[in-house]
């Protein structure tokens, strides 16, 4: 029997560069037998790169990898090699074929044969045995698509376990599961752990980490922050480490903004128990004119999803939205736009820019759509509007007509910002508006946000950088694990309070 606690996998001094970017710098990672080890980190921390390096999807420049049972160090050159050495990965998108049966998915690519033909009896029998050993009792001859995503993931895990049995990497496995399904998955993980397997659990769900893991490794900006035992690390400390804050010597940062204390501010956005099944649990909030409201939370906590539910990008399954005092039905973004909302999406490449269209067209498009199908803005009007925002936002482009794909990422972001500013919305949602923008321009945009607020707009500001939200927001809504967990108003705003609310839990030692 394997000794629990023995070192199973050791990665040392791993360096990995992409052109112009340091992805991993001198990172160590240790996995022991019979443990569930969480790998955590915010955007750009390097978690997925570390896994890719381990499993042979990416190459690396420096460092060593050793595995118990294999002499010396090795390098995996492909996922297949990794599998042969005993390291398997199960991804969030369950990379199986739903049209095939459960049994076949487990054995595809390595089907047992009899007389040169595939032996279905054996496949069915063996896969049923395998699943039974893992406490999963289902009909293995049915197509995978008949089963819930949770069960599909467990089949994927069963396949991985059968092929190789030493290290199992679970990459964001719980993102699409509900609570009971997560529990089932955890039962399976504990069972595998008891059999001596080492499991790397890549996730951003705070609660789950504390529920099922033994150890945590935290990465930040490509470097190792540390490896910790779960019962020796209070949640708040974990959050602090992930965000790069030293919890103990934080000064309370207070931010004062000009405000009319006597006037009751006009409510612009009033959300009542809005929910989008699968992405964001029921939430209610109020945003007033002149307010900049921030959404704080770890990566994957549901911030963008909340914004999308408000904007109609994901049509809400329930709830009532009042805008400027009127109840409005938002079935699609056009409804939100017509009411007076604007939305700058998080992923500008996939959801923001029209790569082949010109700067002018990219800026004009939202305003044009609002105008309808028949009336086109005159060339003069278009040029005027475009130039206005090229100047105001200092967009670096050769020409109005340059295809926007030729602009730098930061300038593309400015184009999208200009697009929405042009529509003069009462409520503007900005999801990571300063990502990929140089420091000087970041400040400009933050100042612009403040100005828009003082002009009477309501703004929702989502950012992974707490400082810039603190600089601009008067209110903070906090999310954790796809749920809104609280609101901090102006007097309560501080990094400490934010992180505490994100962390949740009972300890405050």
């Amino acid at each position, binding site marked *: 029997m394997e000794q629990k606690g023995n070192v199973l996998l050791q990665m040392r001094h791993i360096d990995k560069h992409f052109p112009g970017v340091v992805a991993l710098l001198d990172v160590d990672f240790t996995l022991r037998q019979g443990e569930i080890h969480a790998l955590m980190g915010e955007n750009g921390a390097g978690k997925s790169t570390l896994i890719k390096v381990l499993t042979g999807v990416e190459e690396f420049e420096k460092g060593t990898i050793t595995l118990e049972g294999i002499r010396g160090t090795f390098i995996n050159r492909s996922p297949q090699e990794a*599998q042969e050495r005993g390291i398997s990965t199960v991804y969030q998108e369950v990379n*199986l074929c*739903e049209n*095939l049966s459960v049994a076949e998915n487990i054995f595809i*690519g390595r089907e047992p044969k009899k007389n040169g033909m595939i032996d279905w009896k054996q496949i069915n029998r063996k896969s049923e045995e395998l699943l039974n050993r893992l406490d999963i009792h289902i009909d293995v001859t*049915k*197509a995978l698509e008949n089963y819930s995503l949770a069960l599909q993931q467990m089949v994927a895990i069963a396949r991985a376990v059968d092929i190789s049995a030493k290290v199992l990497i679970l990459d964001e496995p719980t993102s699409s599961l509900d609570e009971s399904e997560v529990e089932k998955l955890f039962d399976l993980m504990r069972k595998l752990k008891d059999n001596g397997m080492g499991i790397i659990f890549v996730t951003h769900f705070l609660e789950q980490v504390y529920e099922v893991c033994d150890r945590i490794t935290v990465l930040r900006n490509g470097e190792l922050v540390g490896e910790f035992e779960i019962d020796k690390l209070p949640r708040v400390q974990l959050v602090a480490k992930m965000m790069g804050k030293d919890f103990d010597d934080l000064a309370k940062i207070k931010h004062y903004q000009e405000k009319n204390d006597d006037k009751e501010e006009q409510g612009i956005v009033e959300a009542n128990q809005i929910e989008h099944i699968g992405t964001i649990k029921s939430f209610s909030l109020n945003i007033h004119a002149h307010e900049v409201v921030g959404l704080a939370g770890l990566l994957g906590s549901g911030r963008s999803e909340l914004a999308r539910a408000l904007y109609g990008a994901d049509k809400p399954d329930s709830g009532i939205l009042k805008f400027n005092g009127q109840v409005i039905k938002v079935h699609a973004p056009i409804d939100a736009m017509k009411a007076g909302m604007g939305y700058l999406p998080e992923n500008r490449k996939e959801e923001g820019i029209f790569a082949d269209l010109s700067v002018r067209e990219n800026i004009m498009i939202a305003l044009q759509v609002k105008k309808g199908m028949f009336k086109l803005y005159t060339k003069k009007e278009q040029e005027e509007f475009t130039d206005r925002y090229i100047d105001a936002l200092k967009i670096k482009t050769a020409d109005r007509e340059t295809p926007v794909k030729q602009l730098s990422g930061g300038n593309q972001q400015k184009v999208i910002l200009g697009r929405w500013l042009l529509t003069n919305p009462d409520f503007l949602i900005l999801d990571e508006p300063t990502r990929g923008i140089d420091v000087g321009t970041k400040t400009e945009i933050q100042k612009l946000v403040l100005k828009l607020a003082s002009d009477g707009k309501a703004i929702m500001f989502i950012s992974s950088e707490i400082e810039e939200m603190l600089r601009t927001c008067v209110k903070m809504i906090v999310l954790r694990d796809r749920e809104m967990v609280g609101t901090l108003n102006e007097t309560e705003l501080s990094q400490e309070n934010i992180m505490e609310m994100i962390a949740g839990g009972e300890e405050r030692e």
Partner: protein
Amino acid sequence: MKHVKIKMNNHTFLLLITVLLFIAMYLSGILLFGDKNFGRIQVFFNLFISNAGLIVVATGMTMVLITAGIDISVGSVVAMTCMLLAWMMEHKSVSAISALIIVLIVGTAFGFVQGWLISYLNLQPFIITLAGMFFARGMTAVISTEMISIKNEMFLSWANAKFYLPFGGYENKRGDIIFPYIYPSVVLALLVLAAAFILLKYTKFGRSIYAIGGNEQSALLMGLNVRRTKLLTYVINGFLAAFGGFLFALNTCAGFVEQAKGFEMEAIASAVIGGTLLTGGVGNVIGSLFGVLIKGTIESLINFQGTLSSWWTKITIGALLSFFIILQSILAARKQRRRAV
């Protein structure tokens, strides 16, 4: 939430509809045209005889469709095959056997070129096979713009060969017993079908086809050689198109430019009606066989009716195809919604 048990399997469900549809149509034929001898066994056999070529082509098409691809050039390849056979045997005095081997090679090469463009250059199957369709149809005319009748003795002996069944005969006016017969082409077609069935169900290559059609990305990550499998599928399909063309030629004994027009749609319709999903990953050749039989039955019904124009066959097939495509689309949408809950 509807429980899965009642629906059995979505796929078996579709196949069941197909089989029932065939039985219903055939029975109605017997009811309506019993007096015209629709009930004779020969009528049933004729379904196979007239459509031996289609059975083979539909088999190949099924495989391509399962990979989530498509090949609309097969009708033109059939025409090109017939013309090539006729031209080689009649104008170049090539022996029947050699001519057969040559067209099979040509078909396979054709499939290889298309498959390579689709699989290795990642070009859309539809555009490539559309070009292939026009290329092959044009080549048919290049070989000869006029009809060529096949008079080659060996070939004709194949075309006229019959296997008689020792039972099921009827008495004709002169008092002789006429036994039902089938052509060897039917036997060949069914052999091809059986081979395809075994290939798809019992070989790694066959299962890879299903995997790729179901989720190409997953198949790749599971270590399957996606490119090679896809290429091979089109190669086999090209071979089967040529072989189907040969069986077709046994029926028509001629090559002409307009031949087999719309054949590709009949093949696709047979597969789709037989339960093959256009989106890939699902399909089986037995269902496609029934799809062919349904098409044959519709043709027979219209024939027996006598007054309806033969174009009604194409329209009915088109309508059936539309119905099944839309049905597939609705079932797929319902599945998506079910899973989101």
